[in-house]
């Protein structure tokens, strides 16, 4: 059975028909063609698919598209302004928080959510806050440094 829903992704409303069991990740990646969010496990294990759903960090692989009807959704594509990277995206690069980049979209979303809830986290709070996101390439340190730096510089995320 198909359900007509509206997804407001990065400020743009999209009308799509989704199957009952279909994930938000599938709708955004395969139906809307926004492939920035990744699928690493399809089971809430890795965080690569993380999006903000009404501001809450959510593993979109394990969230039904129908649940997101009418919600405000932010994906990695929505973090910058046009071609301008957000301060967080910029320091991720400068601090060496990115290697292959496959975990990065989810990491950025998790870090953005963390900084919105807690604008000046300690390193320990960052580690706890982003520990649901797996990275297999970096040692995570660059990611922690990046989040710390953004919070110190007080840039809005």
């Amino acid at each position: 059975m198909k359900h007509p829903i509206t997804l407001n992704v990065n400020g743009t409303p999209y009308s799509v028909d989704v199957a009952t069991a279909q994930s938000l990740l599938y709708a955004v990646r395969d139906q809307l063609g926004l492939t920035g969010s990744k699928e690493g496990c399809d089971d809430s294990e890795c965080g690569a698919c993380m999006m903000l759903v009404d501001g809450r960090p959510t593993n979109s692989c394990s969230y039904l598209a129908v649940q997101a009807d009418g919600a405000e959704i932010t994906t990695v594509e929505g973090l910058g302004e046009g071609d301008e990277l957000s301060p967080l995206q910029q320091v991720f690069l400068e601090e060496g928080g990115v290697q292959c980049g496959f975990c990065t979209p989810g990491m950025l979303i998790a870090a953005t959510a963390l900084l919105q809830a807690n604008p000046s986290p300690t390193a320990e709070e960052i580690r706890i806050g982003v520990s649901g996101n797996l990275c297999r390439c970096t040692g995570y340190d660059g990611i922690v440094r990046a989040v710390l730096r953004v919070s110190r510089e007080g840039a809005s995320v």
Partner: protein
Amino acid sequence: MTRLVKTVTEMEGRFEEKWVLVEDDGLVSWEAEAALRHVGHPTPRLTGPQRVSGAARYTVDVALPGMLHAAVLRSPVAHGRVTALQVAAAEAIAGVRAVLTPASELGFQQRSGPLHDEPLYAGAPLAVVAADTLAAAREACRALAPSIEPLPFTVDIETAWQEQRFDGDLHEEARGDVEAALAAAAVRVELVVSTPGQLQTPIEPHAAVAWWKPDELVCFIATQGMFDARAELAKRFDLPPERVRVITEYVGGGFGGKQNAGFEALIAAELSRRTGRPVRLVLDRHGEQLDGGCRPATRQTVRLGATADGMLTAIDAEALVEFGMSGWRAVTTPALTLYRCADVRGIEANLRLELRRGNAFRAPAVMEGITALEQAIDELAIETGLDPLELRRRNFADRDQSADLPYTSNSLLWCYDRAAELAGWPDRDRWREPQADGLLRGMGCAAQIWWGGGGPPSHASCRLGGDGVAQVVVGVQDIGTGTLTAARMVAAEELGLPLDRVTVRGGDTAPAIYGPVAGGSQTTPSVMPAVRGAAAAVRRKLLALAGDVFEAEPDDLVVDDGRIRSRDGGLDEPYTAVTAKLGQASIDGSGNRGPNPDGYRANTFGCQIARVAVDPGTGSVRVEGIWAAHDIGRVINPLGASSQVEGGILQGMAYALSEQRVIDRTTGVPVNATMDDYKVPTMMDTPPIVVAFAPLPDTLLNTVGAKGLGEPPIIPTAAAIANAFRHATGRRAAALPLTRARVLEAIA
């Protein structure tokens, strides 16, 4: 001058003498003191903005018009015979376009498989379905409802050893008389160590999208070796290589497990050939953890003999390998090469089990070998009462002990000193004093050896256009290691251009500029000299043209910071003063990696020190710090290099503490083939890591002085942690990883 020369090339310890085409570029390696503007300075990634904005297109993101989706049906048993598949039921599902089973006539040749009617491991592919949607393909896989007659299986190393189930011959390499030397030794130690099966677990699973067009097969593949992938597809489908194009723009991590075209690309291509539609095949996580590959488990016995003052007189290493790569024997290589010793023997048996065969995982085999050898060396230090680092220094080998050849460079002694200094090693015994928090602390070290010199063939091209922007093309893909960024830095250096006026393209076989597989730590030392050569060719041509334009002697001119200058300072013009006159023409150059120096071995070295805290109540082990010093020759990009070392260390730490493929012996099936149960470290587990690189470029090896970095950092970490555990508790666990149960048993 273009020549064909015979040179020795090496890939993960396999040496081969071959003819390669080289064009002498007349370059000499940058000296250690050379003042370089880009090379050696931390530089963010070339493709960084794409990676952080979601614009980077990985294989899993490729969507083509009319594309079908494929799903794989896998064996639920370790060994069995498929007696029936409900093909008609699968084909009846709406949207199903093709069903492949072991009975299907395939358009390509493969010795065994790819689809099995007698699966030999749990997770072996039995059938594949292509359908309009992934959901339909998966539903059809379920509808295939295989009937399987179970057959006997062996999944443990002991039984396989007793049954002498060898895969290939026993491999033995020896020099001198190890038994006599052991018998005569003043001090002897013997250690039996088991190491776990470890899964690469890239966050991006194996994936391919294939499109069989009338005149060309185009495959997007998540692979570490796009040219190898092209060769494999061409050979198996019997196509001319130039009619196969492999595109690998971004890869979400490989760690050795993504080689060649692989099952995914072969099957996707076959499905596309049959259906006339593009086909995407992405492993789901369960499939990835079952069939993406692994580092095989081992059981090793190391016996050492030494004089009372710790000089090694005998090294005897035996390894049983749990179904490793066919023909790949290197578990005992460290025993044969890391220390100076005359009487040495290494013997390895690869055992055939009903398990997924091992494949390459970062420092394959050598890491397993170091994990055992370096724990034995630690025992010898305890036995002789010597400081473990001092013992290693005393037995330092300044030549390759197996080949009896000098090294192109070897800063291992520097690594010992630097790691010790960073870690505060001289005071390490204070960690063993009673601690306020009741934990047991200790420090341990381990050394590392790996190849990583690279070699030809590897090519690059460089084109300078009228706008004064240089475009470099290389034949490799960037699997996350920053290869393209390093290429940009090297080209900018040689051309005297700012970084933003050099672009680099890779990840596509269409330009037919060959590069090696990203494996064995050979990319940097193979590709960067080729890039430098191509850039130098362009620089020379540019200066010759500048000589014409400015009526100057080209030899008196230099390039720097986007400008052309005369050595006497009289001339200082922008690049574009010459290039603007090119119109639509361009200045082109090509470069290649020169031959390896005759009569040398090129290796990387390193030392890591770990500090651990053990909770004697719960058995938990926490790594509190890792100090790593590595000799990788010249470091092109310290930002990328440190990040890569940290990532390698984390994987090595997990090998010591948490990662392990767990097989249920009663069913033969892996029970933790998910990322929930297979414990990859999270951000909470990361220790502080301090990294240092030996400041000595390898000027003999190649024109940029770099060795490779991919494998070295993972190699010594687990042994250093195990040795720190020994220091902290006075006990050694017989097997890794150090799970709580093992720890409690060891310290009981």
